[in-house]
């Protein structure tokens, strides 16, 4: 039995409007095992990025923690002070982002940006940190790492910059890597390389990955388990194989149906009708009600999670 590194229970994150808390992330729960890759999939604005930022204590101004609990190695995260947060960020949980082109500071050399990370968490000399930085660049497959270490971000391509971001994120050997749409801004061939790289490094370092994406293809490529988010809530949780074989929630089915299929001769792609309701204007029942092809009266009341064939799904269809 693998150890559980992260446990998120009933996480609520949102903003306050007219003294009323409006959650963007509403009661999200999941666990992450050591060495596991968990995918979080959903449309833009479903709260998947907010979930990841709350794990780093880096919520944008105006957005705050409204409830729930996050345990990192059994220790609650939500009560930590800024000083403690700084020991967690980079050291325990590291993060890479969607836009490799703007993720690195343009005025500092690549090596110095990695060295800053290492020396922030470990007491070692600049020289040693530099050696480690070059090692990390080698690990992520950067050609000529001893040259690149003294180059500036603009001298590298987007794919190379994302490799540098990964090298930097992993330089302090974190337990968890949060990857927020790490391949969305990259060419398809580069995407595959980056995902491949993340998988191989994960195996070497035995770390856990939380991969946030809207791309089910990416999920299929690298994840062990997936949670599907809709309008700030988790609607389904399953292993990757189960999710693609037998999606349970109508929203998951819709997402899978809207993927292009090479065997399908239809000219237009399937879509899910309608739009996601606004955070301040959520229905009291199932949040997918308005757009759901299987909606019925019961759905006006919020469904509970139910376990069907090893999958957790939040839908009345499976309640007897």
């Amino acid at each position, binding site marked *: 039995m693998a150890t559980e590194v992260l446990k998120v229970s009933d996480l609520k994150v949102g903003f306050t409007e007219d003294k009323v808390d409006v959650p963007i992330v509403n009661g999200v729960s999941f666990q992450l095992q050591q060495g596991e890759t968990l995918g979080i999939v959903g449309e833009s604005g479903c709260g998947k990025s907010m979930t990841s930022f709350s794990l780093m204590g*880096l919520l944008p101004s105006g957005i705050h923690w409204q409830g729930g609990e996050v345990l990192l190695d059994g220790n609650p995260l939500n009560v930590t002070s800024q000083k403690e947060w700084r020991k967690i960020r*980079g050291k325990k949980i590291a993060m890479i982002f969607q*836009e490799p082109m703007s993720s690195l*500071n*343009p*005025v500092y050399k690549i090596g110095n940006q990695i060295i800053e990370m290492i020396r*922030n968490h470990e007491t070692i000399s600049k020289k040693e940190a530099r050696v480690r930085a070059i090692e990390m660049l080698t690990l992520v497959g950067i050609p000529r790492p001893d040259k690149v270490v003294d180059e*500036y971000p603009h*001298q590298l391509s987007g794919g190379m910059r994302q490799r540098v971001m990964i090298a930097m994120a992993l330089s302090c050997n974190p337990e968890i890597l949060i990857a927020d749409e790490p391949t969305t801004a990259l060419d398809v061939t580069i995407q595959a390389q980056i995902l491949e790289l993340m998988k191989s490094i994960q195996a070497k370092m035995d770390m856990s990955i939380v991969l946030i994406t809207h791309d089910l293809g990416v999920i299929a490529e690298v994840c062990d388990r997936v949670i599907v988010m809709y309008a700030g809530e988790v609607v389904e949780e399953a292993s990757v194989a189960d999710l693609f074989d037998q999606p349970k929630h109508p929203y998951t089915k819709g997402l899978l149906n809207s993927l292009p299929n090479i065997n399908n001769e239809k000219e237009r792609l399937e879509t899910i009708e309608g739009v996601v309701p606004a955070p301040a204007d959520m229905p009291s029942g199932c949040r997918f009600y308005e757009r759901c092809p299987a909606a019925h009266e019961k759905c006006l009341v919020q469904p509970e999670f139910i376990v069907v064939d090893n999958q957790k799904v939040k839908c009345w269809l499976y309640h007897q």
Partner: protein
Amino acid sequence: MAKYIMKRLLHTLLVIIAISMIIFFAIRLTGDPVTVMFGAGEPTKEAVEQITEKLGLDKSLPEQYFIFMKDLVQFDLGVSYRSNQPVLDLILERAWPTFLLAMGGMVVAVLIAFPVGIISAVKKGKSVDIFGRIFSLIGISFPNFWLGIMLILIFSVSLKWLPASGFDSFSALILPSLTLGLILSGILARLIRSSMLDVLKMQYITTAKSKGIKDWVVIIKHAFRNALLPTVTFMGLQFGALLGGAVIVEQVFAWPGIGRLIVDAINQRDYPVVQGGVIVLAIVMVVVNLLVDLSYSIINPRIRTGRG
């Protein structure tokens, strides 16, 4: 880099030739210097002709311009009609006070504007920011002659702490520097604030925070360093402007700078001094600009490496 500097120097040369033409012809539109020289007296026709000839003003305009340029390339700016001193000496005499005042103004502006701009941006919307923005607005709105006079009234006349004029001690530099610097700090603080706000939104700031480094390191090392880029150009241009444009403050504080020299020369239609003064200021301005661009390439690696 050498190619870039060569290109800039050529550019500079063209600018200076254009300025020399403009100032040469413009000053000749202000009237005849010879009549001013005689003041209220009634000069004889012969006397006027004699002096006109002596000053070379009887020659055609293109010819005069040619002579002026020929001397200029030999660093000969001519001799003042008024004092008969070489113009270059007059300017060099005034250069140090002007430079000192410009530096003083810049130091005051930087010392005030950097912290105000940074804190305003970081505490956007908080009371500190509102205070900072009001301060900036006041700085921008105050006419500098008024501020100068107010400072004199408070610190020289009432409190008797600092001298109101003169150029003999460090304390004499304080009030004129404050006048120039306070005005400049208003605009500079605004610029830094907005530049910081742009930078703080960037992804690499989130990256820096995600590394677990201290907030002030993120703000100064990662944000401010980038926010400085657009500011440096502005500061360079302003420094150039301070060198030539501190005329009013020089008048208020009786500061013996180049600005006052040129204003007096214009009043007296002292062509060589006006031409020489403006040309020297133009050269300084262009050189400052060049230095700013070169310094820009030091703080912005994207320019240095010739890509991006």
